[in-house]
Protein backbone atom coordinates (compact mmCIF):
# COMPACT_ATOMS: atom_id res chain seq x y z
CA UNK A 1 0.00 0.00 0.00
CA UNK A 2 1.36 3.44 -0.98
CA UNK A 3 2.11 5.80 1.86
CA UNK A 4 0.21 9.08 1.31
CA UNK A 5 2.72 11.86 0.60
CA UNK A 6 2.73 15.24 2.32
CA UNK A 7 0.78 17.89 0.42
CA UNK A 8 3.01 20.41 -1.33
CA UNK A 9 0.65 23.22 -0.33
CA UNK A 10 -2.03 22.89 2.34
CA UNK A 11 -4.33 25.80 3.18
CA UNK A 12 -6.84 25.58 6.01
CA UNK A 13 -9.52 28.08 7.06
CA UNK A 14 -7.68 31.11 5.67
CA UNK A 15 -9.16 34.53 6.47
CA UNK A 16 -8.05 37.98 5.33
CA UNK A 17 -9.86 41.31 5.50
CA UNK A 18 -9.02 44.82 4.37
CA UNK A 19 -10.98 47.10 6.67
CA UNK A 20 -14.59 45.94 6.42
CA UNK A 21 -13.95 44.10 3.18
CA UNK A 22 -13.65 40.39 4.02
CA UNK A 23 -11.68 39.11 1.04
CA UNK A 24 -10.89 35.56 2.20
CA UNK A 25 -13.49 33.90 4.40
CA UNK A 26 -12.18 30.45 5.15
CA UNK A 27 -10.27 29.08 2.16
CA UNK A 28 -9.41 25.37 2.28
CA UNK A 29 -7.20 23.92 -0.45
CA UNK A 30 -4.76 21.03 -0.69
CA UNK A 31 -2.34 20.65 -3.57
CA UNK A 32 -0.33 17.45 -3.92
CA UNK A 33 3.20 17.31 -5.41
CA UNK A 34 3.21 17.49 -9.21
CA UNK A 35 -0.36 18.74 -9.44
CA UNK A 36 -1.32 21.74 -11.56
CA UNK A 37 -4.23 23.47 -9.88
CA UNK A 38 -5.97 26.47 -11.40
CA UNK A 39 -8.11 28.77 -9.30
CA UNK A 40 -10.82 30.54 -11.22
CA UNK A 41 -13.10 33.31 -10.07
CA UNK A 42 -14.33 36.76 -10.95
CA UNK A 43 -12.51 40.02 -10.35
CA UNK A 44 -12.32 40.83 -6.64
CA UNK A 45 -13.13 37.28 -5.56
CA UNK A 46 -9.86 37.00 -3.60
CA UNK A 47 -7.68 34.97 -5.99
CA UNK A 48 -4.71 37.34 -6.00
CA UNK A 49 -4.93 37.89 -2.23
CA UNK A 50 -4.80 34.12 -1.72
CA UNK A 51 -1.66 33.90 -3.87
CA UNK A 52 -0.04 36.80 -1.99
CA UNK A 53 -0.85 35.12 1.33
CA UNK A 54 0.90 31.93 0.21
CA UNK A 55 3.91 33.98 -0.93
CA UNK A 56 4.03 35.76 2.44
CA UNK A 57 3.45 39.17 0.83
CA UNK A 58 0.23 39.56 2.84
CA UNK A 59 -0.29 38.19 6.34
CA UNK A 60 -3.62 36.43 6.91
CA UNK A 61 -5.56 37.10 10.11
CA UNK A 62 -6.50 33.51 10.67
CA UNK A 63 -5.82 30.07 9.25
CA UNK A 64 -2.92 27.93 8.23
CA UNK A 65 -0.69 27.70 5.16
CA UNK A 66 1.74 24.81 4.99
CA UNK A 67 4.36 24.24 2.33
CA UNK A 68 5.92 20.77 2.45
CA UNK A 69 4.29 20.40 5.86
CA UNK A 70 5.93 23.54 7.27
CA UNK A 71 3.64 26.24 8.64
CA UNK A 72 4.66 29.49 6.93
CA UNK A 73 2.23 32.05 8.34
CA UNK A 74 4.45 32.65 11.36
CA UNK A 75 7.78 32.58 9.48
CA UNK A 76 9.78 35.78 9.08
CA UNK A 77 13.10 36.90 7.59
CA UNK A 78 15.57 34.28 6.45
CA UNK A 79 13.22 31.36 7.27
CA UNK A 80 10.59 32.78 4.94
CA UNK A 81 13.23 33.50 2.29
CA UNK A 82 14.27 29.85 2.49
CA UNK A 83 10.71 28.80 1.69
CA UNK A 84 10.51 31.35 -1.14
CA UNK A 85 13.59 29.81 -2.75
CA UNK A 86 11.37 26.82 -3.55
CA UNK A 87 8.92 29.05 -5.39
CA UNK A 88 8.90 30.67 -8.82
CA UNK A 89 6.32 33.25 -9.80
CA UNK A 90 5.03 34.63 -13.08
CA UNK A 91 3.29 37.92 -12.40
CA UNK A 92 0.31 39.22 -14.34
CA UNK A 93 2.36 42.12 -15.70
CA UNK A 94 5.54 39.95 -15.75
CA UNK A 95 7.03 42.50 -13.24
CA UNK A 96 10.42 42.47 -14.94
CA UNK A 97 13.02 44.78 -13.40
CA UNK A 98 13.27 47.85 -15.66
CA UNK A 99 16.86 48.57 -14.70
CA UNK A 100 18.14 45.12 -15.66
CA UNK A 101 18.34 43.62 -19.13
CA UNK A 102 16.59 40.37 -20.04
CA UNK A 103 19.34 37.94 -19.08
CA UNK A 104 19.97 39.75 -15.77
CA UNK A 105 16.25 39.50 -15.03
CA UNK A 106 16.20 35.78 -15.72
CA UNK A 107 19.39 35.14 -13.79
CA UNK A 108 18.39 37.31 -10.81
CA UNK A 109 17.66 34.44 -8.42
CA UNK A 110 20.75 32.57 -9.57
CA UNK A 111 23.10 35.51 -8.93
CA UNK A 112 21.48 37.00 -5.83
CA UNK A 113 20.09 33.83 -4.26
CA UNK A 114 22.55 31.12 -5.23
CA UNK A 115 25.66 33.28 -5.67
CA UNK A 116 26.29 31.94 -9.17
CA UNK A 117 29.07 33.66 -11.17
CA UNK A 118 27.72 36.17 -13.71
CA UNK A 119 29.18 34.35 -16.74
CA UNK A 120 27.62 31.05 -15.77
CA UNK A 121 24.35 32.77 -14.86
CA UNK A 122 24.27 34.45 -18.26
CA UNK A 123 24.72 31.09 -20.03
CA UNK A 124 21.93 29.57 -17.92
CA UNK A 125 19.65 32.54 -18.60
CA UNK A 126 20.18 32.22 -22.36
CA UNK A 127 19.37 28.49 -22.14
CA UNK A 128 16.11 29.34 -20.30
CA UNK A 129 15.33 31.91 -23.01
CA UNK A 130 15.57 29.06 -25.52
CA UNK A 131 13.20 27.01 -23.37
CA UNK A 132 10.52 29.69 -23.72
CA UNK A 133 11.09 30.06 -27.46
CA UNK A 134 13.11 33.28 -27.52
CA UNK A 135 16.37 33.78 -29.36
CA UNK A 136 19.60 34.65 -27.57
CA UNK A 137 19.66 38.17 -29.12
CA UNK A 138 16.80 39.05 -26.78
CA UNK A 139 19.10 38.55 -23.79
CA UNK A 140 20.66 42.00 -24.10
CA UNK A 141 17.37 43.90 -24.55
CA UNK A 142 15.68 45.80 -21.72
CA UNK A 143 12.07 45.07 -20.66
CA UNK A 144 10.85 48.35 -22.21
CA UNK A 145 11.96 47.04 -25.62
CA UNK A 146 9.83 43.86 -25.43
CA UNK A 147 6.27 43.18 -26.60
CA UNK A 148 3.63 41.93 -24.14
CA UNK A 149 4.05 38.29 -25.21
CA UNK A 150 7.83 38.49 -24.99
CA UNK A 151 7.61 40.00 -21.52
CA UNK A 152 5.44 37.08 -20.38
CA UNK A 153 7.91 34.61 -21.84
CA UNK A 154 10.83 36.32 -20.13
CA UNK A 155 8.79 36.35 -16.91
CA UNK A 156 8.23 32.62 -17.34
CA UNK A 157 11.94 32.07 -17.99
CA UNK A 158 12.72 33.98 -14.77
CA UNK A 159 10.16 31.92 -12.85
CA UNK A 160 11.73 28.62 -13.92
CA UNK A 161 15.40 29.72 -13.92
CA UNK A 162 16.14 28.55 -10.39
CA UNK A 163 14.30 25.26 -11.02
CA UNK A 164 11.68 25.84 -8.31
CA UNK A 165 9.58 23.07 -6.78
CA UNK A 166 6.46 25.25 -6.88
CA UNK A 167 5.46 27.75 -9.56
CA UNK A 168 2.69 30.34 -9.28
CA UNK A 169 1.08 31.88 -12.34
CA UNK A 170 -0.94 35.05 -11.84
CA UNK A 171 -3.29 35.60 -14.80
CA UNK A 172 -0.71 34.24 -17.29
CA UNK A 173 -2.74 35.05 -20.43
CA UNK A 174 -4.29 38.38 -19.46
CA UNK A 175 -3.63 41.08 -22.05
CA UNK A 176 -2.43 38.64 -24.71
CA UNK A 177 -4.10 37.75 -28.00
CA UNK A 178 -5.65 34.22 -28.09
CA UNK A 179 -2.78 32.73 -30.09
CA UNK A 180 -0.08 34.14 -27.82
CA UNK A 181 -2.20 33.10 -24.83
CA UNK A 182 -2.23 29.54 -26.14
CA UNK A 183 1.54 29.66 -26.75
CA UNK A 184 2.14 30.81 -23.16
CA UNK A 185 -0.17 28.09 -21.79
CA UNK A 186 1.67 25.41 -23.76
CA UNK A 187 5.00 26.74 -22.50
CA UNK A 188 3.68 26.66 -18.93
CA UNK A 189 2.56 23.04 -19.29
CA UNK A 190 5.89 22.07 -20.89
CA UNK A 191 8.03 23.85 -18.27
CA UNK A 192 6.04 22.54 -15.31
CA UNK A 193 6.21 18.99 -16.68
CA UNK A 194 9.95 19.17 -17.39
CA UNK A 195 10.69 20.55 -13.93
CA UNK A 196 8.32 18.14 -12.22
CA UNK A 197 7.04 21.16 -10.32
CA UNK A 198 3.76 21.78 -8.55
CA UNK A 199 1.82 24.63 -10.16
CA UNK A 200 -0.85 26.95 -8.85
CA UNK A 201 -2.39 29.38 -11.32
CA UNK A 202 -5.10 31.96 -11.01
CA UNK A 203 -7.07 33.09 -14.00
CA UNK A 204 -10.51 33.99 -15.26
CA UNK A 205 -9.68 32.76 -18.75
CA UNK A 206 -11.49 29.41 -18.99
CA UNK A 207 -9.68 28.28 -22.14
CA UNK A 208 -6.35 28.88 -20.40
CA UNK A 209 -7.54 27.14 -17.22
CA UNK A 210 -8.51 24.01 -19.14
CA UNK A 211 -5.17 23.89 -20.96
CA UNK A 212 -3.06 24.31 -17.82
CA UNK A 213 -4.98 22.53 -15.09
CA UNK A 214 -5.15 18.99 -13.82
CA UNK A 215 -7.61 20.29 -11.22
CA UNK A 216 -9.73 23.43 -11.04
CA UNK A 217 -11.10 25.24 -7.98
CA UNK A 218 -13.53 28.13 -8.08
CA UNK A 219 -13.40 30.99 -5.57
CA UNK A 220 -16.46 33.09 -4.84
CA UNK A 221 -16.78 35.63 -2.05
CA UNK A 222 -13.58 34.45 -0.39
CA UNK A 223 -14.45 30.74 -0.28
CA UNK A 224 -13.77 27.81 -2.55
CA UNK A 225 -17.23 26.84 -3.74
CA UNK A 226 -16.30 24.07 -6.18
CA UNK A 227 -13.33 21.79 -6.87
CA UNK A 228 -12.91 19.12 -9.48
CA UNK A 229 -10.92 17.82 -12.41
CA UNK A 230 -10.74 19.64 -15.72
CA UNK A 231 -13.10 17.08 -17.23
CA UNK A 232 -15.66 17.49 -14.45
CA UNK A 233 -16.07 21.25 -14.76
CA UNK A 234 -18.25 21.06 -17.89
CA UNK A 235 -20.49 18.43 -16.32
CA UNK A 236 -21.05 20.10 -12.96
CA UNK A 237 -24.51 21.38 -12.09
CA UNK A 238 -23.08 24.03 -9.76
CA UNK A 239 -24.93 27.17 -10.84
CA UNK A 240 -22.02 29.48 -9.93
CA UNK A 241 -19.55 27.47 -12.00
CA UNK A 242 -21.96 27.19 -14.90
CA UNK A 243 -22.56 30.94 -14.94
CA UNK A 244 -18.83 31.65 -14.73
CA UNK A 245 -17.58 29.24 -17.38
CA UNK A 246 -20.28 30.30 -19.84
CA UNK A 247 -19.87 33.98 -19.02
CA UNK A 248 -23.58 34.61 -18.42
CA UNK A 249 -24.71 37.93 -16.98
CA UNK A 250 -27.71 36.28 -15.27
CA UNK A 251 -27.21 33.82 -12.46
CA UNK A 252 -26.35 33.60 -8.79
CA UNK A 253 -23.20 35.74 -9.23
CA UNK A 254 -24.38 39.34 -9.21
CA UNK A 255 -21.87 41.93 -10.35
CA UNK A 256 -21.88 45.25 -8.51
CA UNK A 257 -22.65 47.65 -11.36
CA UNK A 258 -23.80 51.14 -10.55
CA UNK A 259 -26.15 52.58 -13.09
CA UNK A 260 -24.85 56.11 -13.63
CA UNK A 261 -27.77 56.98 -15.88
CA UNK A 262 -30.39 55.95 -13.36
CA UNK A 263 -32.75 58.81 -12.59
CA UNK A 264 -31.71 60.90 -15.58
CA UNK A 265 -34.59 62.20 -17.71
CA UNK A 266 -35.26 60.45 -21.00
Amino acid at each position, binding site marked *: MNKPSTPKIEIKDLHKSFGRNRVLQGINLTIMPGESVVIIGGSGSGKSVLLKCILGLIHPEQGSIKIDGVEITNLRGSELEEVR*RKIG*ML*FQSAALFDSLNVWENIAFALIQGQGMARDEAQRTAIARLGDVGLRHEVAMLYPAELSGGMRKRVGLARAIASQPEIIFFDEPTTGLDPIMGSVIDNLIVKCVKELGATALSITHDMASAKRIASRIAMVFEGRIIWEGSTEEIDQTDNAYVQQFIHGRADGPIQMQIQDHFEGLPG
Partner: protein
Amino acid sequence: MLSLLQALGRTFLNFLGATGRIALFTAVSLSHCVRPPFYSRLIGRQMLEVGYYSLPVVGLTAIFTGMVLALQSYTGFARFSAESAIPSVVVVSITRELGPVLGGLMVAGRIGAAMAAEIGTMRVTEQIDALTTLATNPFKYLIAPRLIAGLTMLPILALVAMSVGVFGGYLVSIYKLGFNPTTYIANTVDFVQFQDVLSGLVKAAVFGFIITLMGCYHGYHSRGGAQGVGAAAINAVVSASILIFCSNYFITEIFFSR
Protein backbone atom coordinates in the same frame (compact mmCIF):
# COMPACT_ATOMS: atom_id res chain seq x y z
CA MET B 1 -17.19 72.14 18.41
CA LEU B 2 -17.27 68.35 18.60
CA SER B 3 -16.50 68.02 14.90
CA LEU B 4 -13.56 70.40 15.28
CA LEU B 5 -12.17 68.29 18.10
CA GLN B 6 -12.74 65.15 16.04
CA ALA B 7 -10.84 66.66 13.12
CA LEU B 8 -8.01 67.73 15.41
CA GLY B 9 -7.87 64.30 17.01
CA ARG B 10 -7.88 62.56 13.65
CA THR B 11 -5.05 64.78 12.38
CA PHE B 12 -3.03 64.16 15.53
CA LEU B 13 -3.57 60.38 15.30
CA ASN B 14 -2.60 60.43 11.62
CA PHE B 15 0.55 62.36 12.52
CA LEU B 16 1.44 59.85 15.23
CA GLY B 17 0.75 56.96 12.86
CA ALA B 18 2.96 58.47 10.13
CA THR B 19 5.74 59.17 12.65
CA GLY B 20 5.58 55.58 13.85
CA ARG B 21 5.67 54.21 10.32
CA ILE B 22 8.66 56.36 9.39
CA ALA B 23 10.47 55.39 12.61
CA LEU B 24 9.87 51.71 11.91
CA PHE B 25 10.96 52.10 8.28
CA THR B 26 14.12 53.91 9.43
CA ALA B 27 14.96 51.23 12.00
CA VAL B 28 14.50 48.37 9.51
CA SER B 29 16.46 50.23 6.83
CA LEU B 30 19.36 51.00 9.17
CA SER B 31 19.51 47.41 10.36
CA HIS B 32 19.92 46.30 6.73
CA CYS B 33 22.66 48.90 6.17
CA VAL B 34 24.90 47.23 8.76
CA ARG B 35 24.05 43.55 8.19
CA PRO B 36 25.53 41.46 5.37
CA PRO B 37 25.12 40.67 2.54
CA PHE B 38 26.12 44.04 1.08
CA TYR B 39 25.34 44.70 -2.57
CA SER B 40 28.58 46.55 -3.39
CA ARG B 41 27.67 46.86 -7.08
CA LEU B 42 24.38 48.58 -6.23
CA ILE B 43 25.97 50.77 -3.57
CA GLY B 44 28.57 51.89 -6.13
CA ARG B 45 25.88 52.65 -8.71
CA GLN B 46 23.90 54.71 -6.19
CA MET B 47 27.04 56.56 -5.10
CA LEU B 48 27.63 57.50 -8.72
CA GLU B 49 24.00 58.60 -9.09
CA VAL B 50 23.85 60.61 -5.86
CA GLY B 51 27.40 61.93 -5.85
CA TYR B 52 28.95 62.21 -9.29
CA TYR B 53 25.83 63.13 -11.28
CA SER B 54 24.83 65.77 -8.72
CA LEU B 55 28.18 67.56 -9.04
CA PRO B 56 27.13 70.00 -11.81
CA VAL B 57 23.92 71.02 -10.02
CA VAL B 58 25.59 71.44 -6.65
CA GLY B 59 28.66 73.14 -8.14
CA LEU B 60 26.64 75.69 -10.12
CA THR B 61 24.40 76.44 -7.13
CA ALA B 62 27.44 76.91 -4.89
CA ILE B 63 29.46 79.15 -7.22
CA PHE B 64 26.59 81.57 -7.83
CA THR B 65 25.68 81.58 -4.14
CA GLY B 66 29.28 82.49 -3.24
CA MET B 67 29.32 85.20 -5.91
CA VAL B 68 26.04 86.75 -4.78
CA LEU B 69 27.07 86.52 -1.13
CA ALA B 70 30.26 88.51 -1.82
CA LEU B 71 28.36 91.08 -3.85
CA GLN B 72 25.57 91.55 -1.31
CA SER B 73 27.97 91.63 1.62
CA TYR B 74 29.98 94.34 -0.13
CA THR B 75 26.96 96.58 -0.70
CA GLY B 76 26.05 96.26 2.98
CA PHE B 77 29.49 96.37 4.56
CA ALA B 78 30.72 99.29 2.41
CA ARG B 79 28.35 101.56 4.33
CA PHE B 80 30.30 100.85 7.52
CA SER B 81 33.72 100.63 5.84
CA ALA B 82 33.83 96.95 6.85
CA GLU B 83 34.69 95.52 3.44
CA SER B 84 37.57 93.54 4.92
CA ALA B 85 35.03 91.29 6.66
CA ILE B 86 33.77 89.93 3.34
CA PRO B 87 36.18 86.94 3.08
CA SER B 88 35.23 85.80 6.59
CA VAL B 89 31.50 86.27 5.99
CA VAL B 90 31.68 84.33 2.74
CA VAL B 91 33.69 81.43 4.13
CA VAL B 92 31.68 81.07 7.36
CA SER B 93 28.32 81.36 5.60
CA ILE B 94 29.28 78.91 2.92
CA THR B 95 30.89 76.28 5.14
CA ARG B 96 28.42 76.41 8.02
CA GLU B 97 25.14 76.93 6.19
CA LEU B 98 24.82 77.65 2.50
CA GLY B 99 27.05 74.89 1.16
CA PRO B 100 25.34 71.98 2.95
CA VAL B 101 21.80 73.43 3.01
CA LEU B 102 21.58 74.61 -0.61
CA GLY B 103 23.47 71.52 -1.77
CA GLY B 104 21.06 69.37 0.24
CA LEU B 105 18.01 71.10 -1.21
CA MET B 106 19.28 70.71 -4.76
CA VAL B 107 20.01 67.02 -4.19
CA ALA B 108 16.56 66.63 -2.55
CA GLY B 109 14.99 67.95 -5.76
CA ARG B 110 17.13 65.80 -8.01
CA ILE B 111 17.67 62.58 -6.11
CA GLY B 112 14.76 62.47 -3.64
CA ALA B 113 12.20 62.81 -6.43
CA ALA B 114 14.02 60.33 -8.67
CA MET B 115 14.27 57.72 -5.91
CA ALA B 116 10.61 58.08 -4.96
CA ALA B 117 9.55 57.81 -8.61
CA GLU B 118 11.77 54.80 -9.31
CA ILE B 119 10.84 52.83 -6.20
CA GLY B 120 7.21 53.94 -6.51
CA THR B 121 7.05 52.64 -10.08
CA MET B 122 8.59 49.38 -8.91
CA ARG B 123 5.91 49.17 -6.21
CA VAL B 124 2.91 49.79 -8.50
CA THR B 125 4.23 47.46 -11.22
CA GLU B 126 4.76 44.63 -8.69
CA GLN B 127 8.55 44.69 -9.16
CA ILE B 128 9.03 44.94 -5.38
CA ASP B 129 6.76 41.91 -4.92
CA ALA B 130 8.83 40.15 -7.58
CA LEU B 131 12.01 40.94 -5.63
CA THR B 132 10.47 39.42 -2.51
CA THR B 133 9.36 36.28 -4.32
CA LEU B 134 12.90 35.92 -5.66
CA ALA B 135 14.00 35.64 -2.01
CA THR B 136 15.64 39.07 -2.05
CA ASN B 137 14.83 41.53 0.70
CA PRO B 138 13.76 44.86 -0.87
CA PHE B 139 15.18 46.77 2.09
CA LYS B 140 18.57 45.24 1.52
CA TYR B 141 18.47 45.47 -2.29
CA LEU B 142 16.73 48.82 -2.82
CA ILE B 143 16.78 50.89 0.35
CA ALA B 144 20.12 50.18 2.06
CA PRO B 145 22.33 51.01 -0.99
CA ARG B 146 20.53 54.34 -1.42
CA LEU B 147 20.83 55.27 2.27
CA ILE B 148 24.53 54.39 2.32
CA ALA B 149 25.07 56.45 -0.85
CA GLY B 150 23.20 59.46 0.60
CA LEU B 151 25.04 59.25 3.90
CA THR B 152 28.49 59.09 2.31
CA MET B 153 28.12 61.19 -0.84
CA LEU B 154 26.44 64.30 0.59
CA PRO B 155 29.45 65.25 2.77
CA ILE B 156 31.67 64.96 -0.30
CA LEU B 157 29.24 67.09 -2.31
CA ALA B 158 29.13 69.58 0.57
CA LEU B 159 32.92 69.76 0.57
CA VAL B 160 32.83 70.52 -3.16
CA ALA B 161 30.05 73.09 -2.60
CA MET B 162 32.12 74.76 0.15
CA SER B 163 35.23 74.97 -2.04
CA VAL B 164 33.35 76.15 -5.14
CA GLY B 165 31.23 78.63 -3.13
CA VAL B 166 34.27 80.20 -1.52
CA PHE B 167 35.91 80.32 -4.94
CA GLY B 168 32.80 82.13 -6.31
CA GLY B 169 33.14 84.74 -3.57
CA TYR B 170 36.84 85.04 -4.37
CA LEU B 171 36.18 85.63 -8.09
CA VAL B 172 33.72 88.46 -7.47
CA SER B 173 35.83 89.99 -4.73
CA ILE B 174 39.00 89.99 -6.83
CA TYR B 175 37.77 90.73 -10.34
CA LYS B 176 34.76 92.94 -9.59
CA LEU B 177 35.32 94.49 -6.18
CA GLY B 178 39.09 94.92 -6.51
CA PHE B 179 40.29 92.95 -3.46
CA ASN B 180 43.92 91.88 -3.17
CA PRO B 181 44.04 88.09 -3.89
CA THR B 182 46.72 87.30 -1.31
CA THR B 183 44.97 89.26 1.44
CA TYR B 184 41.60 87.69 0.54
CA ILE B 185 42.97 84.14 0.73
CA ALA B 186 44.88 84.90 3.95
CA ASN B 187 41.72 86.33 5.55
CA THR B 188 39.69 83.34 4.44
CA VAL B 189 42.19 80.80 5.77
CA ASP B 190 42.70 82.71 9.03
CA PHE B 191 39.03 82.97 9.79
CA VAL B 192 37.71 79.54 8.91
CA GLN B 193 37.84 76.97 11.72
CA PHE B 194 37.80 73.21 11.69
CA GLN B 195 34.48 73.26 13.54
CA ASP B 196 32.87 75.31 10.73
CA VAL B 197 33.79 72.69 8.15
CA LEU B 198 32.96 69.79 10.47
CA SER B 199 29.48 71.16 11.23
CA GLY B 200 28.87 71.55 7.49
CA LEU B 201 29.94 67.96 6.83
CA VAL B 202 27.80 66.57 9.67
CA LYS B 203 24.83 68.54 8.37
CA ALA B 204 25.41 67.21 4.87
CA ALA B 205 25.55 63.60 6.12
CA VAL B 206 22.27 64.07 8.02
CA PHE B 207 20.66 65.76 5.00
CA GLY B 208 21.85 62.93 2.75
CA PHE B 209 20.24 60.43 5.07
CA ILE B 210 17.00 62.43 5.23
CA ILE B 211 16.80 62.89 1.44
CA THR B 212 17.33 59.23 0.60
CA LEU B 213 15.14 58.04 3.47
CA MET B 214 12.22 60.23 2.37
CA GLY B 215 12.69 59.24 -1.27
CA CYS B 216 12.70 55.55 -0.37
CA TYR B 217 9.89 55.78 2.20
CA HIS B 218 7.44 57.61 -0.05
CA GLY B 219 8.34 55.47 -3.06
CA TYR B 220 8.02 52.23 -1.09
CA HIS B 221 4.57 53.17 0.18
CA SER B 222 3.20 54.64 -3.04
CA ARG B 223 -0.16 53.37 -4.24
CA GLY B 224 -2.51 53.82 -7.13
CA GLY B 225 -0.55 53.94 -10.39
CA ALA B 226 0.96 56.99 -12.06
CA GLN B 227 -0.87 59.46 -9.80
CA GLY B 228 0.44 57.68 -6.70
CA VAL B 229 3.99 57.73 -8.04
CA GLY B 230 3.70 61.47 -8.79
CA ALA B 231 2.39 62.12 -5.28
CA ALA B 232 5.26 60.07 -3.82
CA ALA B 233 7.81 62.19 -5.69
CA ILE B 234 6.20 65.43 -4.46
CA ASN B 235 5.94 64.17 -0.88
CA ALA B 236 9.56 63.01 -0.93
CA VAL B 237 10.87 66.43 -1.98
CA VAL B 238 8.57 68.43 0.31
CA SER B 239 9.15 66.31 3.41
CA ALA B 240 12.91 66.12 2.80
CA SER B 241 13.12 69.90 2.36
CA ILE B 242 11.17 70.59 5.56
CA LEU B 243 13.21 68.05 7.52
CA ILE B 244 16.44 69.57 6.17
CA PHE B 245 15.48 72.99 7.57
CA CYS B 246 14.34 71.52 10.91
CA SER B 247 17.41 69.35 11.40
CA ASN B 248 19.64 72.25 10.29
CA TYR B 249 18.47 74.29 13.25
CA PHE B 250 19.09 71.50 15.76
CA ILE B 251 22.54 70.64 14.41
CA THR B 252 23.48 74.34 14.49
CA GLU B 253 22.22 74.46 18.09
CA ILE B 254 24.40 71.46 19.00
CA PHE B 255 27.54 72.87 17.37
CA PHE B 256 27.34 76.58 18.05
CA SER B 257 25.03 77.36 20.97
CA ARG B 258 26.94 78.76 23.91
